[in-house]
Structures are given as structure tokens and as C-alpha cells.
């Protein structure tokens, strides 16, 4: 399996370029092997899109990264091995996962949901008054990204619309102050306008906080718009890797794997 080449967008050190380094990642459910050895890297502060058809293993990839399922091979984040850890331990290392279907806590209020995101920060090495103020400040910051959440801060998360729930899920993940943000199909079940708004916010977050993001999407156009790098996954293998622009330009591949009409530009 040939490791896909990473174009040197910035000729930085390897540590920066391989902030997230996935090598030979294999994973599956019980007998069913889904991923057959993935190799890719994400540079610090970049957005990486993983694209591909249904059942290609996109969600499985994210689940393996955050420890929800067991993976083989090696995944390092800033040099620390992620595989073999529980989701809770991965979260401690700075991995924030926004699961498919949002996974908001529907009977808690919006604000309580966000505070769960800061669960790890209010104890252990972060314990103390200083951190409490920082959590309050972060809450404020999230509300600035997502003004709708502020309006609904005392409402039960279950009463939010789908788009608001997705915003909440992302906001909750940001409360962790993650080093790596994993977004699983954020556009699922949302209207195009809402999805676009959501991706814009993700782009802003990425630019302002320098959070490294891995986003898994079926909506290739949108994902490529905010991504620096992109990988196309098919049947558990990477079939194409490159910069977002390259992937977008690759007419044939785009047509076959992404359902994007070739050479039609980015559309409207």
C-alpha cells in the first residue's frame, strides 16, 4: 500500500506536517473488516476532508480515531498514540468527536450540553478557579459563533431543530478545546442553506483557533470548499489523495466517486 504523497503546502517540520499521522489503519466490526490499511497525515491547523460513497468506511475511520472502535496499525496525534485508547482517554488527548447524527443530550439544556463539553476541563490538572472563568469565556465564544444557541441556552436540546442540534454538537466539541476536531457527516439531514452556514462556521473556527479538523462528508463540494487536503475513500482504501483543489479538478475521479459533474467548476 503506497502512502499517498502529501504536497508540501508549507515546508515545515515533520511534526507540524504529521500532526495527525495515520499509518496502516485497519478496523472493522466483529468479523467484518471495513478499513484495509489507511495512510494519511494532516498538518497542524489544516482541514482534511475524507470523501467517498456510502459504506466506504468514512465513519469507521473517525470512530477508530476517537477510540469508539478498536483499530490496528498506528494513529498518532502530536506524537501520542491514539489507538488502543478508550474514547474518554482520546478526549483527554484532545480529540473531540462530533458523531454522526449529532449525539446531543436531548433532555439537558443547551447550556448543560455545552458544559458537558468542558467536563474534562473542570477537574484534574485543569481544576481551579482560573479554568472555571476560562470555561465561562469559552461558552461566550461558542455563543458568538452560534448566536442561535445563546437564544436557546435554557431550552432542552431535544427541542432544537436539526441544524441547531448540529451547531450544538459542534459547539460542545469545541468546549473541549480540542487539538483535533472530528466531524462526521455534519450535513446529514440538513437543508443546503443550513449546511452551508455550518461549514462557514467550521471554516471560521479553523482559521481563528487553528484547530485541526478531519471532516467526513458525502457532500463533496461543501467539504472541498473548506478543506486544505482531501482523501477519497472507497471500500476501505484510499484511492485518491491530494490538495482540495487537486481533487476538485480531477474530473474523472470527481465524477465517478463524488457525483460532481466534471469540469463544471464549483457551481453556485
Amino acid at each position, binding site marked *: 500500500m503506497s502512502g499517498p504523497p502529501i504536497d508540501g503546502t508549507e515546508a515545515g517540520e515533520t511534526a507540524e506536517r504529521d500532526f495527525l499521522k495515520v499509518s496502516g489503519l485497519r478496523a472493522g466490526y466483529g468479523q467484518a473488516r471495513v478499513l484495509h490499511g489507511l495512510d494519511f497525515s494532516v498538518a497542524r491547523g489544516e482541514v482534511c476532508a475524507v470523501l467517498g460513497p456510502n459504506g466506504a468506511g468514512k465513519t469507521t475511520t473517525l470512530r477508530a480515531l476517537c*477510540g469508539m472502535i478498536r483499530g490496528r496499525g498506528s494513529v498518532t496525534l502530536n506524537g501520542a498514540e491514539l489507538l488502543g485508547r478508550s474514547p*474518554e482517554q482520546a478526549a483527554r488527548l484532545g480529540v*473531540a468527536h462530533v458523531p454522526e447524527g449529532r449525539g*446531543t443530550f*436531548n433532555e439537558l*439544556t443547551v447550556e448543560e450540553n455545552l458544559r*458537558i463539553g468542558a467536563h474534562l476541563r473542570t477537574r484534574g490538572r485543569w481544576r481551579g478557579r482560573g479554568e472555571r472563568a476560562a470555561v465561562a469565556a469559552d461558552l461566550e465564544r461558542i455563543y458568538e459563533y452560534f448566536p442561535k444557541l445563546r437564544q436557546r441556552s*435554557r431550552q*432542552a436540546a431535544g427541542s432544537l431543530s436539526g441544524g441547531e*442540534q448540529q451547531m450544538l454538537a459542534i459547539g460542545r466539541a469545541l468546549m473541549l478545546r480540542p487539538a483535533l476536531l472530528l466531524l462526521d457527516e455534519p450535513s446529514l439531514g440538513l437543508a443546503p442553506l443550513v449546511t452551508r452556514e455550518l461549514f462557514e462556521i467550521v471554516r471560521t473556527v479553523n482559521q481563528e483557533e487553528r484547530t485541526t479538523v478531519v471532516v467526513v462528508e458525502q457532500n463533496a463540494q461543501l467539504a472541498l470548499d473548506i478543506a486544505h487536503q482531501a482523501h477519497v475513500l472507497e471500500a476501505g482504501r484510499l484511492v485518491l489523495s491530494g490538495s482540495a483543489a487537486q481533487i476538485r479538478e480531477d474530473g474523472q475521479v470527481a465524477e465517478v466517486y463524488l457525483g460532481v459533474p466534471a469540469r463544471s467548476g464549483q457551481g453556485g
Partner: protein
Amino acid sequence: MRSMTAVLDRTRHGRFALAALLAAAVAMAVPFYFAPFQVFQLTMVLVYAVALAGLNLLVGFGGQISLGHGAFFAAGAYTAAIMLDRFDTGHLATLPVAAAACFLLGLGFGVPALRLRGLYLALVTLSLAVFLPPLLKRLEAVTGGSMGLTVEKPQPPAWSGLAEDQWSYFVVLAVSAVALLVARNLLRSRVGRALLAVRDNESAAEVMGVRLSLHKTFAFAWSAMFAGVAGCLYTWVIGFVSPDSFSFVLSITLLAGLVVGGLASLYGPLLGAAFVMYVPSVAQDLSEAAPGVVFGLLIIAVMFVAPTGLAGLASRAGGAVARRRAGAAASDRSSVAEPPPESTSEPSAPRTPVDPESVEAEPVGAPPRTEKE
């Protein structure tokens, strides 16, 4: 906006404090206006309320199930009785020991609870409840066997001029008030939030860094501790324990009481305790065989009429009244009203204004929407 919510918080707190004060005043006056037997019944309501508050932590807020809480109750009761009978320690000393013992016992049982869920967990906890009474009979040297143990009730100090039943009532009132407050604060803390998150969505909670094993085990331990405290109070009030007082029916009655009172509601345990206490004794007046039948029929009726329990029914009624009043008030002084939108200041949110933390067990009014916007 922020200052608005602060003001809102203050009025809520104010109202809560007023309600608490009123409740306290009523609770203090009660033993002077009722017959001793009625005071005893009220005392038992408080005892059961503590046990149900503990069970509520586990079942209502933790999303687990236990058919064995009668056993923790019994463990607390026997701990107190043995200490009083064998070691003559005095009543006050039995409370922390019973609490600690049951906490540890619960911690031990929390470990299998990690691997089992639903019916399997119910079965394992039920086995605990089934096997404890015979065990108590066997350990005759310590527990007094099937004869049980008779211990002294706490005696009112001479200066108080209270009768024994009144004194018991006040002692139990104090302990149960503290216990219920602890339960409430526990739920509002970081731990409580994590517990609710685990119940709502286990895997999402885990990826947020919530340690499932820790929180589930401790939910069991806390819950058992409350049951143990209730058991200890039981010994104080009744002054007698025997294996037959703690058959597995007690465990089932506790669970039924909680569900009827209202799962995941803060005052559901009180309502449930009243149900458990009064329904059988009122039914007894009808006929010897009536209690079981009436109890069962009433459970069915409550579940049909109020699937969120009596507490859910009460908060729904309260919400309707508040809405009506709010509507009238809004039309009265629509120009004088503060600028913020109604949605934040009025109880259109599923929480009631009186008790903002009372979450209902099942999101009857708020199904998660998946495809909207």
C-alpha cells in the same frame, strides 16, 4: 441578555426559597396537629422518600435499573440495629456507618452493573433482594435470625417536651431534608451532569471525556447509600428489624413507588413515598385482600393517565396554570414588559418555572427532530 437571565435566576431562586420556607413551616407544624399514628405514617413517608431519592439517582437520572434496593435498605437497617443492639453505640453513630457500609456495598454491585444492562441488570439486582432475607435468618448470632432485633427508639430530650413519635418525626425530617438536598445538589453538579449525559447518549458522553465506568459505578454507590440511610432511619422509627420486613417485595414496591411518583423528578420521590405509604393502608380499610389489588390497579391507572408519574402530572398542571397566568399578564401590561423575547422568560421551555431542574423521564413533549430546518 445575560443580566436578564441573572434576574430571572434570582426570581426563580426567590420563589424556590419561598416555597421551601413554606414547606418547612408546614412540616414543622404537622406533628402538633395530627394523631400519633398519622405522625408515624408521615415519618415513614419521609423514610421512603430518602430511599426513593436514591433509587431515582440510579434509575431516573442514571438510566440503570435496580430491583434490589430493598436489600440496600435492609443492609442499612441491620447495620443500625446491630450497632444499637450489640454495641450500644447510640443512634447518631449508626447513621454515618450505615451510609458508608451501603455506599461500599453499592460500589461493589456497581461493577457488575457496568457489564449488564436492562433486564439482565434487573435480574442480578433482584437476586440480591431474594437472597438477603434467608441470609439474615442464617446469621442468627449477629442478626437475631428470624426473630429479628428489637432496639430502642431515639428518646426525646426532656427539654423538648415532645412525645416519642413527634421526636422521631423531627429527627427523620432533619435527616431526610439533608439527604434530599444532597441528592439535588449532586444532580446539579458536574457529576450529575455527566450522569444525565450518560443516560441520554452513552457514546456521545464518552467521546466528550466522561468516564462511563466511573460514573455508572458511583451512581450505584450513591444510590445504595441513600437506601442505606433510609434503612437506618427505618430502624430508628420502627425500633425493630426482621428478615421478613425486607422481602424482595420491598424492592419492587420501591421501584413501583418511584415510577408512580415520577422518574427523574426531584420531588417525585416524595410523591412516590406517599403513594407507597398511604395507598395500602387506605385500601386496608376496604377489605383484607384489597391492598394488593388497589395498589396494582392504581399503578396501572397512574401509568395511563400520567406516564411521567405524579410529579409529571403536577408539573404539567403547574405549567398550564403558569401559561394561562402569563398570558393574562402579558395582555395586561404588554407595553410595560421588559424587552427580552417571551421565549426566554416564559415557561415555553419544557422546564417548569417553579422548579427549573425537574426533567421529565421521557421527552414526551420534545421528540428529537432529525430532519428539519
